[in-house]
């Protein structure tokens, strides 16, 4: 939702990033305010996931230029775990598996780490159990999830639900959801989207990174940005996603090529 006196949460200016020495992001500008839902779309290889990981501080993604302010702080000066503790959440496209570590144990550790950071009370295992079970209802998750090893043997849909469960527990200021819709069947997509909608409020913001429009049928974005070759080349409202669905990405990218050709 866009509203009058919203505050700026995330301000990206001219962000450039390289992977293995190759420049993938070539100057991204993006401003995200409280209450907003942004969708970042674009064809494969356009740099969407790189943008998400660079913001979260993945060490393989080196920032080579530009600036990022997160609630006024210099985000790029923070270590990845400090960015998380500051309230930046990344929902992973491919969550890792941690054999032998119970999901409940992992979730409680992450929850308590952030609680401690915020000067709030940590929960003991029993208190946490009640708390997490309540959150799991939101995502229609089976309580068995708590006893299984983190993501081990989870289906694609279960892993994504587990990501959104973590978002629910950690209550981030900005949640970047990287291809959360991939690998979800239609029922799981509805449940996950419903969960995200319930978590979105006027004090936080959600950035959806997605290739397809289908998730945007459930989570209606305030802004849709189209990425191509490491830049945001077009920004519009929710209707832009529908147009992309019918026309594909080529016309936007072609427009971009013409524009840069004209500049040159």
């Amino acid at each position, binding site marked *: 939702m866009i509203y009058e006196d919203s505050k700026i949460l995330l301000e990206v200016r001219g962000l450039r990033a390289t992977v293995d020495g190759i420049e993938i992001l070539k100057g991204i500008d993006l401003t995200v305010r409280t209450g907003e839902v942004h969708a970042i779309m674009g064809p494969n290889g356009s740099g969407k996931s790189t943008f998400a990981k660079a913001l979260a501080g993945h060490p393989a993604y080196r920032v080579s230029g530009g600036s990022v302010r997160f609630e006024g702080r210099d985000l790029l000066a923070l270590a*990845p775990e400090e960015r998380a503790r500051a309230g930046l959440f990344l929902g992973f496209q491919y969550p*890792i598996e*941690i*054999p*032998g*570590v119970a999901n409940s144990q*992992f979730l409680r*550790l992450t929850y308590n*780490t952030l609680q401690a950071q915020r000067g709030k009370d940590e929960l003991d295992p029993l208190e946490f159990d009640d708390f997490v079970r309540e959150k799991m209802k939101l995502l229609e998750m089976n309580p068995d999830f708590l006893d299984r090893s983190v993501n081990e043997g989870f289906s694609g849909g279960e892993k994504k639900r587990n990501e959104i469960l973590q978002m629910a527990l*950690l209550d981030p200021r900005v949640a970047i959801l990287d291809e959360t819709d991939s690998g979800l069947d239609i029922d799981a997509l509805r449940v996950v989207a419903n969960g995200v909608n319930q978590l979105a409020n006027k004090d936080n913001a959600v950035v959806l990174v997605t290739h397809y429009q289908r998730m945007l049928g459930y989570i209606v974005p305030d802004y849709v940005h189209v990425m191509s070759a490491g830049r945001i080349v077009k920004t519009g409202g929710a209707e832009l996603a529908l147009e992309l669905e019918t026309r594909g990405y080529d016309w936007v990218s072609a427009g971009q090529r013409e524009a840069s050709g004209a500049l040159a």
Partner: protein
Amino acid sequence: MSATLDKLVNQPYKHGFVSDIESDVAPKGLNEDTIRLISAKKTEPEWLLEFRLKAYRNWLGMQEPKWPNVKYPKIDFQAISYYAAPKPRKKLAGMHEVDPELLRTFEKLGVPMNERAALAGVAVDVIFDSVSVATTYKRKLADVGIIFCSISEAVHAHPELVQRYLGSVVPAGDNYYAALNSAVFTDGSFCFIPKGVKCPMDLSTYFRINTEASGQFERTLIIAEEGASVSYLEGCTAPKFDTNQLHAAVVELIALDNADIKYSTVQNWYAGDENGVGGIYNFVTKRGLCKGVNSRISWTQVETGSAITWKYPSCILRGDNSVGEFYSVALTNNHQQADTGTKMIHIGRNTRSTIVSKGISAGHSNNSYRGLVRITPRADGARNYSRCDSMLIGERCGANTFPYIQVHNKSAQVEHEASTSKIGEDQLFYFAQRGIGAEEAVSMIINGFCKDVFQQLPMEFAVEATKLLGLKLEGSVG
């Protein structure tokens, strides 16, 4: 990120110090006179001297094993002192008589033995440079007929038991290092659980090497008679030295009908510095004989120290329906080398064995699992399940699995599973993105990886092992 990993796994050894206790050290070198000296110092009976000399003559004709996947300079056996005992050597009536310097050493190690013994209800037979200086709870154990003492003491107090069982599982000529141990062993533990007795507490021995360049040749003998059971804990730390120290222990376990022996080890000996200088050579022979029907021997080990580990705690499943188990975590880091595993020899009918091995390699280390499962022709219905998992931390370490499976009976069922995984930047990034730093992340991943083994450890030991792995892998994260 790999720099972070390096920092994490390259922690200086925290137990590296030499305590200042005057030692009675034998001159360096090995010959029959050295052996006679050891035997005389310990006022041993003639049969034991003969046992030693026979082993020594065997050893002279043997070759060092070349098959382990480890590299080290040739050992000069004449440069080692084969006997060292802390002074004073008079018998101690209680903890208050123990040298305060020795007690402080244990304090530094974080194992205040008096408190520890009381807290955990553990009888601690402390071995400090080969001679036992304190034994607790002995009386309580004696009430139920259990003998738990140093092997030197047992030689004098229970010669018939020692003579009957010593070398019955690991013969004096078994292998190069077992022969050497049989010739020169100075002390160790003896444990005898009589028929029908369940040992009321875990028995524990702390081994510690303290004199520079004194080889350690511990000898442990544990016998569980019919229907008896015991859980035995062995924990080790050693001070930091630049010269390599040879450790060649022999442990023999004997389980008669329906007896049950559980032997747990946490080993944290000095592993050498980050360039691979110094550290203990740990060449150990551990073997259990399931002699009786329905007997069970279970080995659990957490190996984190030593420059080189060469160790295969094994079970000979002779009794029908007997059970052998091996649960192992071996962590290597910097330039450590480990070649460890087990042997399960199925001889009796319906014998079963389980092997769970978890190898963790970091730094430049090399970690090999080597295991033998042999089903002999008359072992009808024998079963084995083996699982060998390796975890690599960083880019420069190695992991190997060498399973040897020899099946000579068609009714046997043998299963072997293996996996390799890695802690890399994607794993650590996932944790970081949830606010968890690299140190805690590595610790959590490792503990999850080792869970199946830690579950086998007695509660107190499991906590210690978890802390130890954390200690070995923690550090200042940038």
